[in-house]
């Protein structure tokens, strides 16, 4: 008997008890559906996280001013601006693996162009910003080094701002007023989309660091060369940890923080934050994997149970097959093929169900879901293995039957 004939005969045995077979498969169906949904949703989540890391800029750390103690009162982080763009220069110069150190000051402001106005965030930046955030202008041009050095009153608009102020018109070389200072538009940034926290990253304008410090964002930035924060980009992920250590040492020296005094700044590893998100996605995956494993186990036991029933019910058939010349291993393979066919069909149904569930989650959660062909092959293959594993004992019992006893049984 060829394998195809054997499978056809197994199918006829399975369909002879259609409802029972379907109920038996249910465990496998749920298990495989969980695996498929898990992999699809998990890889979708990982994709989302990757996308967010990419949108932020990879291998990034951010240095922010720390808390300051004044006369026993501990003011919150950022209460004073202890960082300067000289700190950024020092980091760029002295810390290994640093690709860019971008000092910046940020604030919110109203931007006016002709009859339109728009409230937005303003970043006063230097040239390293573009490298650190892996973000560039789409139309027009970026700042040139001289403009940054002099603090010229030129501005680069984010897409959202450009659209709200100028609509379809070309904003390049137009003038926008920020706090009554007329800035000339020299470029528009490429679209960046939403941040990990749902913020529209394109709702922003950029001006040279000194132009922003002196003319727009007040506070005490103007009086010295202090900045709000510094983005530090490293060449690779491995550079980040040692880089943060040497930055800490460097900044403590520069700020004359000695002994066991607290740092007056703090450094956060942004990649690590993204990795945390990725880790929680992994936790979710692990949970689903546990559900899948338990479900496949239960499904396998269900198959074993129903195969044992089937062997008992068909004892006479087994006896007859033995009498007409079936060898024990023919009986073994007959029941193994039956169990495996049962579990594989269950697996295929599970793939369909899991794909449907993943698609639904993707639609509802706005979460990209990816159904990988590998996961499908793996899931179906694994359910076939479950069939072989849990079908073996009943099949072996069938194969060990004594033909005389089996023929006599009712």
């Amino acid at each position, binding site marked *: 008997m060829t394998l195809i004939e054997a499978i056809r005969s197994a199918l006829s045995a399975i369909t002879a008890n259609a409802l029972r077979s379907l109920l038996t498969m249910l465990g496998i169906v749920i298990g495989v559906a969980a695996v498929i949904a898990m992999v699809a949703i998990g890889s979708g989540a990982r994709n989302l996280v990757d996308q967010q890391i990419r949108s932020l800029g990879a291998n990034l750390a951010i240095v922010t001013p720390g808390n300051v103690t004044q006369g026993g009162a501990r003011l919150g982080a950022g209460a004073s601006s202890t960082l300067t763009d000289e700190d950024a220069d020092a980091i760029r110069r002295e810390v290994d693996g640093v690709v860019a150190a971008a000092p910046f000051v940020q604030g919110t402001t109203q931007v006016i162009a002709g009859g339109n106005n728009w409230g937005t965030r303003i970043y006063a930046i230097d040239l390293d910003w573009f490298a650190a955030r892996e973000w560039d202008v789409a139309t027009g041009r970026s700042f040139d080094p001289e403009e940054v050095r002099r603090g010229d009153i030129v501005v680069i608009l984010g897409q959202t701002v450009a659209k709200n102020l100028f609509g379809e018109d070309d904003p390049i070389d137009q003038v926008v007023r920020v706090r009554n200072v007329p800035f000339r538009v020299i470029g528009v940034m490429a679209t960046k989309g939403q941040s990990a926290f749902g913020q529209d990253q394109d709702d922003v304008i950029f001006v040279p660091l000194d132009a922003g410090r002196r003319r727009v964002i007040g506070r005490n930035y103007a009086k010295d060369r202090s900045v709000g924060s510094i983005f530090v980009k490293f060449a690779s992920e491995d550079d980040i940890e040692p880089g943060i250590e040497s930055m800490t040492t460097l900044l403590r020296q520069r700020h004359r923080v000695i002994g066991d005094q607290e740092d007056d700044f703090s450094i956060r590893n942004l990649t690590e934050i993204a990795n945390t998100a990725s880790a929680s996605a992994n936790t979710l995956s692990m949970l689903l994997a546990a559900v899948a494993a338990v479900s496949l186990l239960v499904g396998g036991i269900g198959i074993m149970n129903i195969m044992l029933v089937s062997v008992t019910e068909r004892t*006479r058939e087994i006896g007859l*097959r033995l*009498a*007409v010349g079936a060898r024990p291993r023919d009986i073994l393979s007959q029941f193994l093929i039956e169990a495996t066919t049962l579990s594989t069909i269950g697996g295929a149904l599970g793939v369909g169900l899991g794909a449907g569930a993943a698609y639904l989650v993707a639609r509802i959660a706005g979460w990209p879901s990816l159904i990988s062909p590998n996961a499908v092959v793996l899931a179906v293959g694994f359910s076939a293995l479950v069939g072989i594993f849990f079908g073996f004992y009943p099949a072996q019992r069938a194969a060990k039957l004594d033909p005389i006893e089996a*023929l006599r049984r009712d």
Partner: protein
Amino acid sequence: MSLIETHDLRRVYELDSGRVVALDHASLSIEKSDFIAVMGPSGSGKSTFMNLIGCLDKPTSGHYRLAGTAVESLDANGLARLRNREIGFVFQQFNLLPRIDALSNVELPMIYAGFDKKTRRDRALHALGRVGLAERAHHRPMQLSGGQQQRVAIARALVNSPSLLLADEPTGALDSRTAIEILALFQELNREGVTIVLVTHDADVGRHARRLIRFKDGKILDDHRQTPLDARDLLSAEVAA
């Protein structure tokens, strides 16, 4: 050389209640193309004898040769092969598989002999023709009468052209007329050269064989040749009446 030769065949069951000697020192030989009835009350050893010569069981001691093969030295696979090639079984309860049609039932022994699909179809159809059921090939067992089911079972027993047709109470589940028809079929097959061993407790059935072997208490009580009743005569007598 005889088709079947047994020498001091002995089968002892070790039960919780003690040893039971089901068959004791049975020695006989059966020639090709003979028609033998094995008779005896239940517990006489005739079933044990049938299981042994049917290669379903192995003797505790003694020797058994079937078509030149020493059966007692075979393992389970060897016994299966011998059953497949040399023996066709016919049972009281027919033992057809209910889910498949008559043709597929007849094909069953050839599946284990490794024939391809086409050969199986052809030979199964031919075997069904021999028992007069060619036009019922695609009926399922449930759609056939008892006598027809037994004919399908006989076709299945014949399909691998075995040396021996072994029938265990083949008329036990049939009404008397159908039983005679089945006996007529056996006699016809026997005239064509098929060796038949028929196990029965019914003396009327036993009278259709050419040789009668009686068992009692695990021993051969009596073994003699007889002039068989011709089942065709009974059938035509019934038609005349």
